[in-house]
């Protein structure tokens, strides 16, 4: 069991207990330079925003961290566009939309705009995407001696794809995970592990249940809420979470000494 540290960035999420929609908190335009910004789809802009938040909070140079992006469905707007264009001739595909269709578009734009040569990856695990990206990033941080940024994202489904994925509220959240000792900034120590146990996703805040119903990217919100509350409400009670990884296994994440973030590692 490895103890690591963690910070977060969120978009389409709560500040305190208020649910913030995208119109309340518009994306910062300066995060992606104009040349790339013109070409980048909304999914990339949202992910870059939360990646930047997480790096700022930790005072970490983006170039020093590996990145693992996740989304169960990928960019459904682009899938919808491609499939519509391909229904009948002349089947003229936009080259920019085509190169943006790769699942690693976010990490591509992120590494280009932050001049980072660090490793990047992009994954999906359908229902278990949010827990698997945490596991993938935490294991990489533990095994490779470098901080790892992870993104959990799901965008709204266009009409035709709603039968397949009923997501209608976009979400992007980011965490920066690392071994203890790599940072001086205040971080939340945690342990993680795998248990052979069947479990459901922990309940979200009542305000969030409806907008994120059927959204594969929202599973880690209770963990972020616990970290966020630790910032304002000191508490030494450990918070433990179980997130399903499959029908028979779950990821356990325990936050340690929440009122004293960053002070103690085991």
């Amino acid at each position, binding site marked *: 069991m490895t103890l690591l540290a963690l910070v977060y960035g969120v978009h389409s999420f709560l500040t305190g207990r208020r649910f913030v929609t995208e119109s309340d908190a518009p994306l910062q335009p300066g995060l992606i330079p104009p040349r790339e910004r013109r070409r980048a789809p909304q999914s990339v802009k949202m992910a870059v925003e939360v990646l930047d938040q997480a790096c700022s909070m930790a005072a970490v140079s983006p170039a020093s961290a590996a990145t693992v992006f996740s989304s169960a*469905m990928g960019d459904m707007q682009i899938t919808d566009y491609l499939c519509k264009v391909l229904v009948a001739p002349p089947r003229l595909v936009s*080259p920019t939309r*085509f190169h943006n269709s790769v699942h690693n578009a976010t990490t591509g734009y992120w*590494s280009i705009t932050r001049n980072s040569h660090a490793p990047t990856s992009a994954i999906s*695990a359908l229902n278990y995407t949010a827990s698997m990206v945490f596991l993938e990033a935490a294991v990489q941080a533990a*095994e490779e001696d470098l901080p790892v940024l992870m993104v959990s994202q799901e965008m709204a489904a266009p*009409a035709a794809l709603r039968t*397949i994925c009923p997501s209608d509220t976009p979400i992007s959240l980011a965490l920066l995970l690392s071994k203890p000792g790599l940072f001086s900034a205040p971080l939340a120590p945690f342990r993680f592990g795998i248990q052979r146990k069947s479990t459901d996703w922990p309940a979200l805040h009542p305000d969030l249940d409806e907008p994120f119903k059927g959204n594969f990217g929202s599973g880690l919100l209770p963990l972020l809420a616990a970290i966020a509350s630790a910032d304002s409400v000191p508490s030494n009670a450990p918070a433990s979470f179980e997130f399903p990884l499959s029908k028979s296994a779950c990821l356990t994440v325990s936050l340690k000494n929440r009122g004293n973030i960053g002070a103690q590692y085991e």
Partner: protein
Amino acid sequence: MSLAITGYTATSGLGCGVECIQGSILGNRSGLRKNDFPGCDLETWIGRVGVLETTLLPRHLEHLDSRNNRLTWLGLQQDGFLASVFELIDRIGVDRIGVVMATSTSSIGRTEEAYMHLDDSGLFPAKYCQPEVHNLHSPGIFVAEATGLTGPSLTISTACSSSAKVFATASRWINHGFVDAVLLGGIDSLCLSILYGFNSLELLSSGPCRPFDMRRDGISIGEAAGFALLVRKDLAPEAEFELLGYGESSDAYHMSHPHPEGKGAILAMEQSLKRAGLPASSIEYINLHGTASRANDLVESYALSRLFPTQTLASSTKGWTGHTLGAAGILETVITLESMKHGLLPGTLNCDHPDPEFKFPILTENTQKPIRTAMMNSFGFGGNNASLIFGRLND
């Protein structure tokens, strides 16, 4: 790194299983053909698995039907691979084996088909309501269901480096200790998105691709499925091959154009050498990314010249298989392992006049030579690079 490879297989335009690979390389027979993919009138050549249209999924997997999953099923049947998975399950259990798959476009071919048959309200008709198919993890879901594996499972999708990166993820999982083995692999199948998408970038060759040739004018798209079992070495005393190193990096340059000085490619190769604890001079053969795009081959040859002595033998096998995208890493790993097994190093099919601009000599003809250590490179859109090193065991 103490990880053994206890089984592997690949199916591509060359045919089903590893014997087809060896036969085609020995006979210099390409698996590419003039484009005859249904619904696509582009003038290009493709590496198509001819039997997919008549491949049927078994009843218990029918709900996962798609071209990509048919190819996965066909691939799993070859070379006794499923039998070695079941033998490993008997020894260590279904929950100690992870599933790490790779794909670029997953089952999007099936989604394209669904859009051609939308009902009056613009929704998928019942036949296409397959939530476990129309998503990026479809390969991982299919493999877990087909094998009964219940360990952690995910699908990596980093364009054309996807199925090289599965080795890095699988290594970390095993080294961290929550699994003892990983069934890894990559699958990509022909679809309209890919054919028309690469056409829009003007990257398709009008004939069979010619990697590293001065007349090369683009890539040929292929489809493939490949798999391997990566196992803790102490559980695999009979294994023939081991993974010695992996390297992963980003170009930080452009979404669809490689770094002009191969910065990311060099970093990935350096890291895999470092992890393997080997000097560049100990690599005896390199299976190159070698897509036959003007830019890739020029940049890759420059990157090689910065790291390797010129007597290192290096070739691209995409003239045989086409560029199989998210399956390229595993397909070319299997080709590399077979080269080590038989002591037959593939040349570069269709490379008749190597480009004089290249800074590194390319192996053009098949060469008999027993080797023990080889590298395999995969680079993808988004500037995503991966490099692997394999070694022979038990001689």
